[in-house]
Every structure is written in C-alpha cells, then in structure tokens.
C-alpha cells in the first residue's frame, strides 16, 4: 500500500538523521525531491525528536530601537475589547496582541517560536513527556510588565486559573479547564494535560495563550471579571504600551522602551483604526498609502490587482487550512423524526445513493471557480485537509466532467424525465442548495447549477443573509448548523496547526442535532465507523508519522465518500505598504510577530 511505503521510507530517513548518517539539510533536500515540501520535512524531524530543523528566522534589520515613526494599521472590523481571554473574534485577539504576548507563537510552517519562554520545550530536552502528558516551560528572565513589575511564573499560573474559572466567562476556558499549571520556581512552570496527546502545545501558546498580569487581575477573577479596569486599559509585556482605546474605532500604543528583545520595536507608535469595509481598506493601503497594513481583505482578486498597479502596496497571501467546501446532507431534511428535521438517525432518501454523490462531485468546476471568481484568494483543491503539508493527502483527484456524471447517473438507474430532470422510483433529482449572501458564493452556485442542469439534476438556489446563516439562533431554521436542506456551501476555518480538532467535523458522535442545540460540529450527520475509529486512535497516537498518515486517511474517507466536496482553499489575504516588512503566519494572529515589523527606507 502506498501509504505504508511513504511511512516506512520516512522512518528510515529520520533514523539516518538521528544517528548522524544524514545531515538535516540533506534530509530536507531528499524529502523535497520525494515531493514533500521543506516545512513538512522539518516538521517530521521536529516531531521525531530531532532538534528544530528549520525555525522562524527573523529578518529584522534595524539596529536600534524606535525611530520608525508611526505604524498605521487598518482593521475594517475594529477591536471591541482588549482582554484576550474575552475576545469574541480575531479582531479582539489582534487588538490585545499589540500589548499581550503568549509563551510561544506559531509560525506559518506550524513551528513554535518562543516569545515569553526561554526556549521551546521538547522531548529531547526532557521538558515534554514522551506521551505529551506534561510540559515544562522555562520562562524568559528580565521581562517587565508595562508598569515596571517583573514577569514571573506566578503570572503564567494565574492566567491559566483566570481562564479556567467558569465564572470568569473567558472564551479560552476550553483550553484551560482540564489542564493543571503549577509553579516549579520563579521562572519555570509545569503544565499537566488531562490526557496523553501528541498535540501538547495549546495552553499558554498562540491566540489563546496571551499572559495577563496577576497583580492587576487578581482581584477580578471569577464573577467580577467584567469589572476589571485593565480589561479596557491593557498592561502587557508586548512591544507597545497602551495609550488609549475607543471600542470599534481606535487602539493606540506607544513604544515600550523596556521591551525584552534588543533593538525592538522599530516604530515609535502604533495606531489600529477600525470601521468601514474591506474594499476601502484595501484602497487606503494599496492605492493611496494612507495606512501601512490592512487585515483580512475579503475583496475580489480583480479589484486587488487593479489597486496594486500604483505600486504603493502589495497583497500578501498566507496559505493556511481554511477551506470553502460543499456539504451533502447525510440526514433527511424534509421528514421529521421525533419532531426534528434532519435527525441524525434519518438518512437522505436520494443523496444516500453513492452514484448521486459522486455525480455531484463531478459537477463542481473548481478550476473555473478559481480562475474566474477567486483568483489568488481561492485555490482549487481535491482535499478537505490542506495544511500543514505533512497532513495533505496525495490520493484524492478532482475531475470536472458533466458527461461522466450523466453516465454514472444513467448506469445507476436515474433516467431523464420529460423536463430533463432525472427520476428513479418516483424520486426526482431536485436539491435545495443554500449558502450565505456573498457575491463570489452566488457566482459559484450559478456555475454549479448550470453544470448540474446538463447532467439532469435540478438545483434550487437559496441564499441566506450572513448574519442569520452563521448565527447560533436556535429558533431560526436557516442557520448553517441546522442544515435543513440538501446541499450547502461555506468556509470552515482551521485555527490550529494540528488537525485533530478540525477533523472532528466528521465524527458521528458529534452530529449536529436538537439535543445539542445544533452545536455539534458534524453538520452533514455523516456516519462512518472506520472514520470514528481512526479519529479516536489519532487522539492518542504518539508516533507523528503514523498520526499524519491517520489524518490523511480521514481526509480520504470523508472526501472519497463525497460527504463533502472541497471547492477552494481560502488563504489569508492582507494588504501592506510595499516598504513594510511584516512576517505573517497562517496559524496565529496577524500581529503574532509585531516586534519584528519594520519599514524599509
């Protein structure tokens, strides 16, 4: 079997590196020749316990602190609060990230980069348990809070306790509620995970890991959390100190002259302006140069290209795991069972036929959707799991072929009726296809509808206002988690470089239903025992290579059964001034490396 072969080959090479027979560089070179990307190769080495092969390398050039003038960034949805543990969306995390820092952050290849930690823990250094059950973090010494107090292990322990207290109502509670963080000495903490997991680095790291000062929040842990004055006047360890904040409009910060990295930061002040819309934000950065950086430019590629022609700014694309995809309902949305539509126990009367599902997948013209709708901001893909590269399957192919789709249906007994729509046993091939109101999505719907018509499938297009479609309103039948129709399309986000959480979207025990107020993550209500077992096994598999193979298999099971049809991978798109040098990451906030941002002369 092909998978086995890849796995064994990798193992031999990794062993060669460990025993010194092969240099790390040669290993990576060989892997690239074998068709793997360099980050994937370095990942394999890191997880196999070989010291970090390729880590984030700072390209920071300035030789002194400050002197860079103001840095102006535009967030078309401005932050509304500045406590990272209350952040309702990435906008709030980003606003907080100017001032607060985690122990370590994720670079765009999925590697950890130490920030407030002295080093990244590893099995080799005996700071991570071989089964990932505990982690020991050594903290950086000499770090000061903006008010001059020293940063110590107490702050780290406190942050975990603050977030873990259900009465604090922190949004990061899931990360902390089952872990135990204890102090070993002033600059060392130990994190005890509730279960053995190869993905040990979630608490105290990245977006959920920003450390808050104990001396300012101590009196406000629990039910009084919302009264803490520091919620609106952050005091952190970051490169910029807080000046003022107007929710939704403006966050301002000034240089932290005591910052714990030499020669940083470059800018004398930072200004984060909120409000407006994505198109005019793109314009202010790319065309007029009023601002240096704009976040999340959900703008048609054609418009971005036109704005870039002046040469004042450039669009940067950061490829992550987000994906625009189509779901085919496994449950029956048109019949009520126990008073519930699309009950997880029900099966869809037509889509349950594998021939129909495979025909549907042949009717999605991904290449045209990329070429004519998304451009650089949506890349046609055959896989659901697209990143980090070590988890990407090479077995899935996509094929746009309406004739083959028609032939498949014909062979399965679906015959064309007088109106051109296929019928079998009195059931017509007619589906309701819903998505949110958003120009590229409506265009995609049209492209698919036309192809489906040729093959004899009638698609009724439905579009729901985004504020309703993506809400969790239990009373509204049109939310995406209810999925009370046959086919739907939206983008799902992958927030961690580890796919365990991302891939739980197909685990049958997670099915979205009335019992869990439609908050289960398995929205298609797909049931596959092999998938469930593989996901369960991956949760505790310690061998990174085997585990990667498991996620590849899960992707192939879900995509191969056509429960979902991947359409385009959605990279993160930002605009920046052509002189700005800002390292970005797909697995962390845009401002994850704000300290390294500088402007070229």
């Amino acid at each position: 079997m092909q998978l086995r072969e890849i796995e064994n080959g990798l193992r031999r090479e990794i062993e060669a590196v460990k025993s010194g027979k092969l240099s790390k560089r040669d290993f990576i070179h060989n892997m690239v020749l074998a068709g793997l990307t360099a980050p994937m190769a370095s990942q394999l080495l890191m997880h196999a316990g070989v010291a970090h092969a390729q880590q984030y390398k700072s390209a920071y050039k300035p030789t002194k602190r400050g002197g860079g003038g103001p840095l102006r960034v535009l967030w078309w949805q401005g932050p509304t609060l500045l406590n990272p543990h209350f952040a309702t969306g990435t906008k709030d995390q980003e606003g907080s990230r100017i001032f607060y820092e985690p122990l370590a952050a994720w670079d765009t290849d999925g590697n950890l980069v130490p920030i407030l930690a002295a080093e990244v823990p590893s099995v080799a250094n005996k700071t991570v348990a071989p089964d990932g059950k505990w982690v020991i973090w050594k903290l950086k010494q000499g770090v000061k809070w903006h008010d001059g107090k020293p940063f110590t292990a107490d702050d780290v322990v406190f942050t975990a306790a603050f977030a873990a207290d259900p009465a604090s109502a922190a949004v990061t509670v899931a990360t902390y509620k089952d872990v135990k963080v204890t102090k070993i000495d002033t600059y060392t903490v130990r994190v005890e995970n509730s279960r053995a997991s190869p993905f040990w680095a979630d608490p105290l790291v990245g977006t959920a890991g920003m450390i808050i000062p104990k001396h300012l929040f101590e009196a406000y842990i629990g039910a009084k959390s919302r009264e803490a004055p520091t919620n609106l006047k952050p005091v952190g360890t970051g490169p910029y100190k807080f000046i003022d904040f107007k929710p939704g409009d403006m966050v301002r910060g000034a240089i932290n002259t005591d910052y714990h990295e030499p020669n940083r930061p470059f800018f004398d002040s930072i200004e984060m302006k909120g409000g407006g819309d994505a198109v005019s934000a793109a314009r202010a950065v790319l065309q007029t140069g009023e601002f240096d950086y704009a976040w999340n430019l959900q703008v048609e590629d054609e418009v971005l290209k036109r704005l870039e022609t002046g040469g004042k700014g450039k669009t940067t694309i950061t490829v992550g795991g987000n994906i625009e995809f189509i779901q085919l309902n496994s449950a029956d949305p048109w019949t009520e069972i126990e008073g519930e539509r699309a009950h997880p126990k029900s099966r869809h009367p037509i889509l349950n036929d594998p021939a129909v599902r495979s025909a549907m997948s042949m009717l999605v013209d991904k290449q045209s959707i990329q070429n004519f709708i998304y451009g650089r901001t949506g890349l046609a893909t055959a896989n659901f799991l697209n990143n980090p590269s070590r988890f990407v399957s090479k077995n899935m192919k996509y094929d746009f072929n309406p004739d083959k789709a028609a032939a498949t249906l014909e062979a399965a007994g679906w015959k064309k009726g007088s109106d051109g729509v296929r019928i079998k046993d009195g059931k017509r091939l007619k589906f309701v296809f819903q998505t949110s109101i958003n120009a590229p999505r409506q265009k995609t719907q049209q492209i698919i509808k036309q192809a489906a018509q040729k093959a004899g499938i009638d698609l009724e297009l439905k579009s729901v206002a985004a504020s309703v479609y993506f809400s969790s309103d239990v009373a509204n039948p049109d939310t995406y988690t209810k999925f009370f129709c046959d086919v739907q399309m939206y983008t799902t986000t992958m927030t961690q470089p580890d796919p365990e959480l991302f891939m739980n979207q197909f685990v049958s025990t997670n099915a979205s239903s009335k019992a869990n107020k439609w908050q289960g993550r398995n929205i298609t209500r797909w049931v596959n025992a092999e998938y469930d077992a593989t996901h369960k096994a991956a949760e505790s598999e310690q061998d990174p290579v085997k585990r990667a193979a498991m996620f590849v298999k899960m992707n192939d099971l879900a995509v191969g059964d056509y429960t979902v049809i991947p359409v385009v991978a959605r990279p993160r798109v930002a605009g920046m001034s052509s002189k700005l040098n800002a390292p970005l990451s797909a697995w962390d906030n845009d401002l994850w490396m704000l300290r390294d941002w500088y402007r070229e002369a």
Partner: protein
Amino acid sequence: MSQYILRRLLIAIPSLLGISLALFTVLALAPGDPFGELAANPNVPPEVAAELRRKFGMDDPVLVRYWSWFTAMLQGSWGFSFVSRMDVDQLILQRLPTTLVVIGSSQLLALAIALPVGIYAATRPYSIFDQIANTLAFIGFSLPTFFTGILLILLFSITLDWLPFVYRADIAETGWRFYWEHFKQMIMPVTVLGLFQAGSWTRYVRSAVLDVIRLDYVTTARSKGLAERVVIGKHVVRNALIPVVTLVALQMPAIFGGAIVTEQIFRVPGIGSLLISAMLANDTPVIMAVTFVFSILVVFCNLLADVIYGWLDPRISYR
C-alpha cells in the same frame, strides 16, 4: 408658557415609554445573537456561550428583560455592552463629540449656503441666478450621500491625493498641525452632508421668502421709501424665517440618522457608526441606547420647534 412646556414634557413620558417598549420587543424578536461568533468558533465550547447568555440575562423572557432594562434606566444606568464589556453611556460619550463636530459644522455650512442663496433667488424669481440655484438645489438633494461621498473620495483622495478619506478622531499632532489635520479630514464628510441639506433648505427658504415678499405690508414698506436692504432684511426675512426655523429644528434628528451612511463611508467614529457596528454584532444594549437617544432627540426637537414657533410668532398662544 412654562405650564405649556411642563404639560408637553409630561405627554412625552408615555410616548417615550411606548417607543422603548416597541424598540425592545423588535430587537428581542430580531434574529441573531451577540455570541454567535463564539458558537462558530470550534475552540470555544458551547457551554461558554450558554454561560455568557445566562450571565447577561439573555435567556429570560422579553418582558422580564425589558423590566430590568427599564428599572436600570430609571437609576441612570444605560446598560452594559455585551460585546465591549463596558458601560454603554461611556461608549456613547466617547463618540458624541465627533458626531457633534461633524454634524454641527455640516449644518452650519448648509445654513450658510441655503439662507443667502434662497433669499437672493426669491428676490429675483425666475432670473438666471434663480434658475441655476434651483437646478443645483435639485441635484444637491436628489444625489444620495453615499454616492457623493464616494465621488468625492475618488476625486480628492485617489485622483488628486489631496485629502485623507479615513477619519481619525485621535491625531497625534500638536499646535496648528493638529487643527490643520482635523480640518483636512473634515472637509469631505462635512461637504457631503452640508450640500445635501443645503439643497432642500435652499428650496424651502426661497419659497418661504417668495410667499412673504408679495404681501401688502412689504409693498407698503417699499412705498415708504425704505432701502431694499432694510425691506428684505427687516420685514421679509424675519417673517419668512418662522417656518424655516421650525423645519430646521424638526429635521435635526433625521440628520443624525442620515449621517450614519456618511459616517460609515469616511469611517467617522460617531454615534451612527457605533449603531451600525452594534447592529452587526447584535449588541442589544448599545442598539437600544443609541436608538433611544435618537427617539429622545425627536421628541425633544418637536417640543423645541413648537416653543420657538410661538416665540417667533406671538399670534400663536399656548393653552
């Protein structure tokens, strides 16, 4: 007079109560949830959103929630924003100065155009000046502000690169540069709002003056040999302005509402953009507070118009 005002204020109370109840019910029935974004985030367990809903009392019946809002309001508390986790009155106060400056200047600009142009056009009806003024006024109030706003941005920010199109309430400058930067960024939003208003007011001033200028007492004044300046200034305009003043007072709240679009285009951090972002985030206490401020403005401006009207025209008596 004072008795009349008192009576009007007392009548205002039940109407404000009715407005607040209607607003609250509509908002409670509207789809959406301030913690919807949390529910879509796989890292946040559903219990957190449920706990937040419970904590902010969102699972109570509408009437219970209305009652707690109402009693808090009586004690002077405007509520607590779900999204920003801060007091609503603080949020509004932060934004008020910007709104007042931008809307105030645009109204002054509108008056500064409408009064002289309207009066001059009325004294020379159907002259070339009148025709041109009329045409421009029609264009002025038939072009929506979101259109003229984008047009100005295209011309002055993008083609000519003279003016910034992102409004920044905090400018890190001092001295004359501070005022200059503020002036520069205010030009476009104030012009857009001011010209729109000036269009309809010019038409109104012109017809009001035209109504008065034909009356007998004006002819009498002229025949006394008074200078034309005195006739127009003292006899015509004074009387003609009575309905105009009422109109300006009555339109004030509408202007606050109409400025929302302009605030959005230029990213002016005023009350209007606060309302929009609160609506998008389903932040009910903020929506409630801002719309309630608007309704108080409407009731108050109505009262003001009535009072000013009687003061200008003593024939109207208050009983």
